[in-house]
């Protein structure tokens, strides 16, 4: 196994990689589409050290169709196995495009899984813009410069925005109406439109965008799980919107499917069933703390500024109005079948959380 870490290492081993690519691709001269059918895929995963990235690398390691995996991140993923090459790639670096194109060309990448997105809102909005919006541009340009024909990108159903005028189930055709003033959402919407431009028909590229519902589960950590881990969970007085909770295993299964099968388009990846937020909080074993919206807005705004809150007050929309997506298309087209319903996913998350708490108690015995 050759493992690259750091720029110097990458450049030094490039020649070796080139030879390997030739070995693996039987018809290097033919058109990429024709060649892809017999050839085993070389998949690059950006954001490979993130939750989705590292687990997906682990899943793809076991996939016989995948010849090689490029893990691109600033940290190596812990799941990297024999097939994986780790590249140190920072999407926020001005020369990221150059580096990515180099790596893609060196390894003969044909599929890019773009997961370098923040899972939770951050105070560093400048950084998040660089990472998500500009970083996506870097990745896509690197794809354009090389022979990458397939892109799988992570997006979220949050981008539809929570509005009282939303239908109960938002289809993929629904416009993304999330608040553009919130960088966490605006950058992702920009990234998505860039990816759609990249995948415009007639260019022989397959672009799959997976909009996942809020992901919860025993091991994932994002602002939903942190929100549901408070002893008192703030909610908006008089509102109890319906939510979906996607189990982490289902989310990963969806990405694996999207890599293994060619299903161009945008897909909502959602579980079966919905849960009212209040019910979800109680199932998680927490206590809802209903606040009137004006008070909640300013309170959480202050807490957010003081870095005590998970999310800025803009996210109160999601505690008031429905933002539930319809996953029918992914079921029909991609053959995605979620294993967990919203309720089961939430209970699985809550159980793990309780286990963790019990473990903490036993670690510091009374």
């Amino acid at each position, binding site marked *: 196994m050759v493992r690259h870490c750091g720029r110097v290492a990458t450049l030094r081993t490039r020649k070796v990689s080139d030879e390997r690519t030739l070995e693996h691709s039987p018809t290097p001269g033919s058109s990429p589409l024709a060649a892809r059918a017999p050839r085993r895929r070389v998949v690059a995963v950006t954001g490979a050290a993130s939750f989705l990235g590292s687990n997906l690398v682990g899943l793809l390691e076991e996939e016989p169709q995948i010849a090689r995996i490029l893990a691109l991140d600033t940290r190596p993923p812990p799941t990297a196995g024999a097939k994986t090459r780790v590249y140190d790639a920072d999407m926020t670096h001005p020369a990221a495009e150059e580096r990515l194109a180099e790596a893609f060309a060196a390894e003969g990448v044909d599929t890019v899984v773009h997961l370098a997105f923040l899972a939770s809102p951050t105070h560093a909005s400048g950084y998040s813009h660089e990472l998500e919006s500009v970083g996506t541009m870097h990745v896509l340009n690197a794809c354009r410069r090389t022979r990458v024909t397939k892109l799988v990108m992570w997006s979220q159903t949050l981008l539809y925005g929570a509005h009282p005028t939303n239908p109960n189930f938002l289809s993929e055709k629904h416009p993304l109406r999330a608040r553009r003033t919130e960088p966490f959402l605006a950058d992702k919407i920009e990234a998505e439109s860039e990816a759609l431009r990249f995948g415009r028909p007639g260019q022989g590229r397959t672009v799959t965008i997976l909009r996942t519902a809020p992901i919860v589960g025993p091991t994932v950590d994002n602002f939903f799980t942190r929100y549901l881990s408070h002893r008192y969970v703030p909610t908006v007085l008089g509102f109890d919107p319906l939510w979906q909770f996607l189990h982490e295993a289902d989310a990963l299964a969806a990405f694996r499917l999207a890599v293994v099968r060619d299903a161009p388009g945008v897909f909502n990846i959602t579980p079966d069933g*919905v*849960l009212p937020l209040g*019910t979800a909080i109680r199932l998680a074993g927490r206590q809802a703390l209903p606040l009137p*919206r004006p008070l909640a807005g300013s309170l959480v705004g202050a807490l957010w500024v003081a870095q005590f809150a998970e999310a800025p007050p803009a996210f109160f929309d999601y505690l008031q109005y429905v933002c539930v997506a319809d996953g029918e298309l992914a079921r029909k087209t991609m053959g995605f079948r979620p294993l967990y319903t919203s*309720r089961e996913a939430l209970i699985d998350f809550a159980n793990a959380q309780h286990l963790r708490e019990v473990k903490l108690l036993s670690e510091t015995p009374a």
Partner: protein
Amino acid sequence: MKKEKRPPRTGTSAKPRARATRPVRDDTSAAANTVATPKADGQRARRPRRAAHAKVKEPQVPPPPAEELAPHFALDEEDEPLLEEAPELGLGSRMVPPHVGWSDPLDSMPPTSNAQGDVAEQIRMLEARLDRLIRTGSVPPDEPPSSEPVPLAKNEREPAGPPADDIAKSHYFEEHWGRKGLRSRSEEVDDFGLDPAYESRFRPIAEFLYRRYFRVRTFGVANLPAHGRCIIVANHSGTLPLDGLMLRTALRLEHTTARDLRWLAEDFLFYLPFAGVFMNRVGAVRACQENAERLLGKESLLAVFPEGVQGIRKLWSERYRLQRFGRGGYIRLALRMQAPIVPCAIVGAEETNPLLYRLESLANLVGLPYIPVTPTFPLLGPLGLMPAPSRWTITFGEPVSLDSAGPEAAEDHVLVGRLSERVRTAIQAMLDSGVRERKSVWFG
């Protein structure tokens, strides 16, 4: 009970006692468990500590969790020194809020023996088990019987506290926390937010309104299909729209197969706190094509009020005059989904809150479509919104079948307009005859 059961408080007698009872408690026989009530546990757990307090130099005594102590000590002035100790013992390590009326597992944990080795061994066992759980992701089938396999049902019936192992089990929390926290709500709502448990709590109120208050008479229920998709098109009235709820109740009480009706409610409802959630949980769905299509796709019975807000904001002088029927969206829906339309006239609802005037500029500030002025409303305060007990009549007309036109006719605007007008006239005629035939607003 506490005082009676308390054995003579001598530091020396407590230790052997606590030790002797442990193996008995591990045994799951009922006799042993009935003796070990949580209070007795608490006492036993405390006794060795008191002994420790008396003999200051006994370092083996493990400090107990603070919660375990607090409730007992609060009653007992003799234990003040220990009460002072409590905060140092890790207050706030309780996992669950105390107000949900279930016995905190920590309150009734197996008594901590004062023998250091015993506790350490227990903890090691628990840790090993947790590690195994985390590694394998499930409880291994060949669990050694030594790890106290107390069935959960038993814990609920008997006051004996669950051993620490059980707290680590996932279903423990499902049983104790989830269910009890959700007493009034069901754990799952349907896709559109109807909560069966929540609704069943309001069902008696709806039935009271239907049978006693509005004394609703329903005609032509036979016109509704026993199964399959169908759209009920009704007039909308009453400043507070109760007609959807009454239609739902009518269908449940009068229809032969007690069909479940969902109705489409105006957007503004979902901007409102409480009202939106309440209506959603008892069956209202936001009015839009996507929702309607999805509901009809599930072969459900759907009531629409094409007048929308225009219907409920009618002034008293305009009562029983149908407003415009939107842009005929419901016709397009019926054509696309090939669903029959049943016209429905609701007579009597206009009189529940006769609207004299609408305050609109003020309402915009609050996010309401209008603020009603009725003979009673601003005068009597919120009580004035109470509907007057007029007698209602709900009449279902002959179904209008649109089968002759295919789904593609939905794009034919002229046809849609003509069909919409036909349905509107049918309902207007039913309304007119209903109003004409009734002799009294209050007695029908």
